[in-house]
């Protein structure tokens, strides 16, 4: 694992801007949602209004009928779609961890230094996992500072724990993006493919709550094991660790592929599509 720590430090430094940008955005959003919790509770007729919304819309935003409870509020305004938004960072950053540098041509020189491929891979992966965690932690801090001043009746630790499933889910889709980047022609394509799967899974989760026929498919997807606002009450550690383990498993396959591959000098790869020619004679 030679070079792991050096790569970890360097990659984390490269993520600085994204951590600040995404983290502050999430913190401000958390601050706002935490701050207006009491105001939302006092809106008259809100429940009736929500009840009039079509089921197809409600299906994608958690338990909107339970807005008066911290769990329902947190589900609706945070865990229902924040993973989708932070997922943009997650899949694009993970897809570019190695393939991005390879396309820019900088990986060639980095790997000519006394750093093992394993050290490089896991150093960068660890930095990515930490960067994602720090972004979510900043989001947590934004919400947490409002706790003493609102009737959002949740402690600091349960709120912190409720962010963990989001981290596990993002890690899993990040690992998927990294794996895709090992065999798809470009980091961009890997980010698009894994991001597409993230969105598809989000939509499937919503549709499956409307259509029972979709439930068997939904049951084997990551979102089935993603605990949204419910984690405020009691986190299902088996689901959390399940997502983490699957994410690590995907990263492990990506690592194996990275061990065996030739490092490109630069540029994107291309698909090898053979032109079909009519048989002669």
């Amino acid at each position, binding site marked *: 694992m030679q070079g792991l720590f050096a790569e970890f430090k360097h990659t984390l430094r490269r993520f600085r801007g994204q951590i600040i940008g995404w983290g502050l955005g999430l913190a401000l959003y958390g601050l706002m949602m935490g701050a207006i919790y009491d105001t939302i509770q006092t809106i008259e007729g809100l429940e009736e209004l929500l009840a009039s919304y079509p089921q197809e819309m409600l299906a994608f935003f958690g338990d909107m009928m339970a807005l008066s409870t911290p769990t329902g509020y947190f589900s609706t305004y945070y865990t229902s779609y924040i993973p989708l938004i932070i997922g943009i960072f997650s899949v694009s950053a993970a897809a570019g961890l190695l393939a991005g540098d390879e396309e*820019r041509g900088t990986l060639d*020189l980095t790997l000519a230094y*006394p750093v*093992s491929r394993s050290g490089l891979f896991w150093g960068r992966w660890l930095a990515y996992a930490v960067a994602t965690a720090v972004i979510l932690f900043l989001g947590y801090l934004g919400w947490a500072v409002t706790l003493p001043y609102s009737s959002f009746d949740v402690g600091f630790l349960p709120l912190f724990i409720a962010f963990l499933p989001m981290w596990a889910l993002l890690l899993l889709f990040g690992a998927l993006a990294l794996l895709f980047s090992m065999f798809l022609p470009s980091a961009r394509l890997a980010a698009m493919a894994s991001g597409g799967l993230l969105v598809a899974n989000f939509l499937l989760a919503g549709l499956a709550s409307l259509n029972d026929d979709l439930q068997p498919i939904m049951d084997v997807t990551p979102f089935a094991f993603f605990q949204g606002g419910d984690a405020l009450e009691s986190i299902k550690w088996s689901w959390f660790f399940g997502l983490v383990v699957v994410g690590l498993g995907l990263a492990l396959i990506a690592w194996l592929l990275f061990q065996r591959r030739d*490092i490109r000098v630069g540029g994107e790869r291309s698909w090898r599509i053979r032109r079909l020619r009519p048989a002669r004679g």
Partner: protein
Amino acid sequence: MKESHALIISQLVKSYGNVQALRGVDLEVAGGQIFGFLGPNGAGKTTTIRCLLDLIRPDSGSIRVLDLDPQADPVGVRQRTGYLPGELSLESNLTAERALRYFSDLRGNTIDWNYTRQLADRLELDLKTSIKNLSKGNKQKVGVVQALMARPQLLLLDEPTSGLDPLMQREVYRMLREAQASGATVFFSSHIISEVEAIAERVAIIRDGRIAEVVEPQRLIDLAIRRVHVRFRESVATEALDRIPGVVLVDQHDGRATFQVEGEMDPLVKAMAAYPVSDMETERPSLEEIFLTLYSN
């Protein structure tokens, strides 16, 4: 394994899909030598160098770098090697110093920073400038500094003076000779014949993925066809010169003549002694001309 050899490559084969880049490269480079590696574009120079560092994996064949197998111990090889890629890319948002500090980090911070600064000063490289604001030549200087700063036992340099002005090229040659004097082996690829002539002790020519020749640089130049321009004090009959073996008169007018000479210059120079020569100039053959001579035979 011969201990005096820095590199031993035998029967190295590497393909990219249907394209066979290396078709059985055999090469030995003695330790402490400055060794030139020449070949036309696409001949396999970069592929060979990248196999030495385990950046790409050969299909078959064996490599020993400083008595180590790069596939079995890539980190060991890289610990003792400095590398300058042919297409150098550096992280554009870093300053030159920050980039070098990162490379130093990858070597476990064992770099002598005073020595690194000396190298940068000699190349007139401002370490505070951001990589994205550096010219191609200045980026190349960063590449040269990072390759040399660890005082490695082996330098693998792919076109080391690409983009540098003649003054800086000479400074890099001096640095390479100093590295050699302190015991390092320098293995470099080049397209510039004067560069090869100036610093290389031996030269390998790779063509179509195979080593075509391993010779001394002077021998290469001797092999090639050169042009000799002669100005006579008065009009003379030069038909006799045209009959010298290996010499062809290609142009003659107004007391000037141009000859094409294959092989050594000695017969032409001796024959010239009988003529009233006022000036004589020899055009150095380009690498392409040398290849043409070699491969057309």
